[in-house]
Structures are given as C-alpha cells and as structure tokens.
C-alpha cells in the first residue's frame, strides 16, 4: 500500500499546488497507519516509505526517511496512549505532525546547506495543513479498512493494600 502511495505522491500529488499549499499523501498515510498499528510499526513504515520516496526523486537519501520515521513513531506513541479511543485523533495528529514535519524539513535542509525558503514554507503552512486534513478523512477510512486496528491490551490495575 505504501509503495502505491509513494508512486502517487511523486508522480501526481507532488505537483498539486492549491492556494500555495502542497498536500502530502505520504505523510497522511504514514500517520494513519501509525495511529492504527502503533509506534514501532509506524516508524518502520515511515522509514521504508521515506527511503523509497528519496530514491524516486534523486533526493538526499535518508532525508524523508528520517522525518517520516519520527512522524510515524510519535503518532504511534500518541495512538497507543492518549489518542487511542478519540475520534479526533487522526485530524489532530495530522495537523500537529504536518506543522512539525514542515518545520523539521526546513531546519534539516538549512543544516545541510540546501535551499530553505522559510518565508514560502510559512506562507504555505496553513493551506498545506488544511489540504492534509481534507485528505485524512478518506485515507484514514481506507487505511482502517485495510489494516484492522490493533487491539490494545487493557491492563487491569489492582490497588494493593
């Protein structure tokens, strides 16, 4: 599934520009997968998808992989703990992770000495978040159908004494 998403992101969605915003289907999918399957699965999915995406555009190998690994891990942790039973968890995760992803990418590019157009990224941040939120609804529904949510173990807490 992630292979297909990488292909669609690189050849179709990467060129979409609506009100200066650029939707990121790959990030949305990794976040949805992580919410349903947990931190480790999310990190591995993020790493694999990111590495494939880096390869497909002759990019700096490991760049997208690093960002998506962290995005997958953090979202997974959120899904495993506070966000597991909350209906708004996917939308909240996407909004927060999109902002963090964009800023981290900007900082990382700056550290690598690559073009880091901060003004452009901050102008496009809000539309990008909105576009990603729009994508989240169908992507989360589809991911939920394909990947059955992990059944979280309910731990019984017994008070001693």
């Amino acid at each position, binding site marked *: 599934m992630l292979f297909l998403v990488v292909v669609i992101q690189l050849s179709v969605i*990467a060129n979409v520009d609506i009100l200066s915003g650029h939707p990121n289907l790959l990030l949305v999918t990794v976040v949805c997968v992580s919410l349903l399957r947990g931190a480790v699965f999310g990190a591995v999915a993020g*790493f694999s998808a990111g590495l494939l995406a880096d*390869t497909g*555009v*002759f990019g700096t190998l*490991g760049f997208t992989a690093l960002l998506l*690994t962290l995005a997958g891990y953090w979202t997974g942790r959120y899904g495993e703990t506070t966000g597991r039973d909350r209906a708004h968890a996917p939308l909240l995760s996407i909004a927060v992770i999109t902002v963090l992803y964009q800023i981290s990418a900007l900082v990382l590019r700056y550290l690598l000495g690559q073009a880091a157009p901060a003004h452009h990224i901050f102008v496009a941040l809000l539309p990008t978040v909105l576009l990603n939120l729009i994508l989240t609804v169908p992507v989360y529904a589809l991911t939920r159908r394909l990947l059955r949510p992990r059944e979280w173990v309910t731990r019984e807490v017994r008070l001693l004494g």
Partner: protein
Amino acid sequence: MVGGLVLLSLILITFSFRASSTGTLHQVESAGVTVLRPFEVAAERVARPFRDVYGYFRGLVHAKQQNGRLRLQVNELRQQALQGKSAQEQNREFRAQLHFIDSPLFPRDYSPVNTRIISWSGEFDQQVVIAAGSDQGIKEDTPIVTQDGLVGRVTDVTGSAAHVTLLTDESSAVPARDQKTGATGLVRHGEGEGSLLLDYVPKESDVREGDVIVTAGTQSKRYPSLFPGAIPIGVVTSVGQSDTALYKQIQINPYVDFSGLDPVTALITHKRSPKVP
C-alpha cells in the same frame, strides 16, 4: 529499533551528502529509480486527464485578459518576424562568405529528445525527474526546453531517467541577454514562486518593460555557458534601480508555466563545443 532507524537515516544522509555522482549510493538510487519508473509512468498517465481538466479551468481564468494583450503582440511580432527573416538570410550569406566556425547553434545543431515528467520533487526543490536518460543520449548539463522556452538542465542521469533542476530552483543561474538591446545579466529565481530575476545588469544598460530575455550562450571564454544562445526565457515585467544598488532590479515573467510542465524536450547536440585552451 526506532533509534536504529533514526541512526540509519542519519548515516544515509551523511553518505548521500558526501557521495560522488558515480559511487555505490548513486547506483542504489539508479536502481530505485529504475524500479519506480514504470509505476510512475502509469500513475502519471492515469492522472493526466484529471490534471488536464484542472489546467483547462485554471487557464480559463487568465485567458480573457490575455487575449487582448496577445492580439496586439501578434501584430508587432509579425512585423518583427519578417525583419528577422531577412536579417537571418543576410547573416547566413555573410557567414558562408567568411567561412565562419561557430559553436553549436540552437535549434539548428540540436536534436530533440521528447519525453515526459514522471515525478516531482517536493515543495522545497524546483526539480523533476524525466523518463529519458543516458540511453537516449542525455548527459549531465543537457538543456531542457518546452516549445515556450527554457526549463532547466539535467543535473543527474541514469540509463532510463534524468534529474532536471528547473530554472526556478535556487541553485540555477543562466547567462541571459535582452534580445532588443543586448544587455546581459544572469537569470535567477525570483521572490515569488515561479518568478525570475535578471540580475547583474549594470545600471547604464538599457532594459525596458516588455523586452524579451533569451539565453546569452557563451559570453566569456573563461566561463562557457551550459546553454546555447537564443532560447527564450521570458519577458521583462518591471525594471527598477536604486541609488545604493549596483545593478538594476529586473523582474521577468517566464514563458514556461513551471506548474504545468509536460511534455519537455532535451536538446542533444553532437557538435563539440569549442574548448578553452
């Protein structure tokens, strides 16, 4: 586990950053591109009708206001074309009489390789991947154009695909000249998305709004240009200068619509460019 993946990513970034364009990592990337290529071509074909519909409606918004302006331009250009044709004839005759030896000329000495774009880099880079590579004769620094004008140049190549850095990328710089007055400068990315600047044009040079900017070709033997001369780049939209700045501030509206690129043409030449001794 997660720490290991993060570490692996950082190692990959380090190696990728330091690796040469022919090293092992580059071969891994080439293999990845080769695997992805058929899928990207298929996805691009499926998405094309939808993209065309979107492009059609987006184009309609600007079409009406462009129409009047373009009609006036057509009349002006028709006259210029007639004058240009006779000047070209004269030029050819004079060159023949002088037995003039020249570097490759555009478009005469170039053969086109028409191809499509199969993937786009993200919003940070103005770079694309095209579905033709060294198997089709494309090399590093091969100029890429559309029928409207200059698009960019090849910065990395594998057998079946090539990485193109667009003119609007921060790392791009093209020697250019004003077709009318001959004033030269360097075309670089502008402030807005898809806009360009003609930089390093001395204040005393004559550049006016509406002037056409084309590639300059090689101007100095110390710095041979990667692009042949006379490829259209764009039209001057504003010219400014301040007392403190050393050069004019010239904004260019590119002829090429960088958001709707496709198909593109790689210019291959077999004529050798003169090398500086």
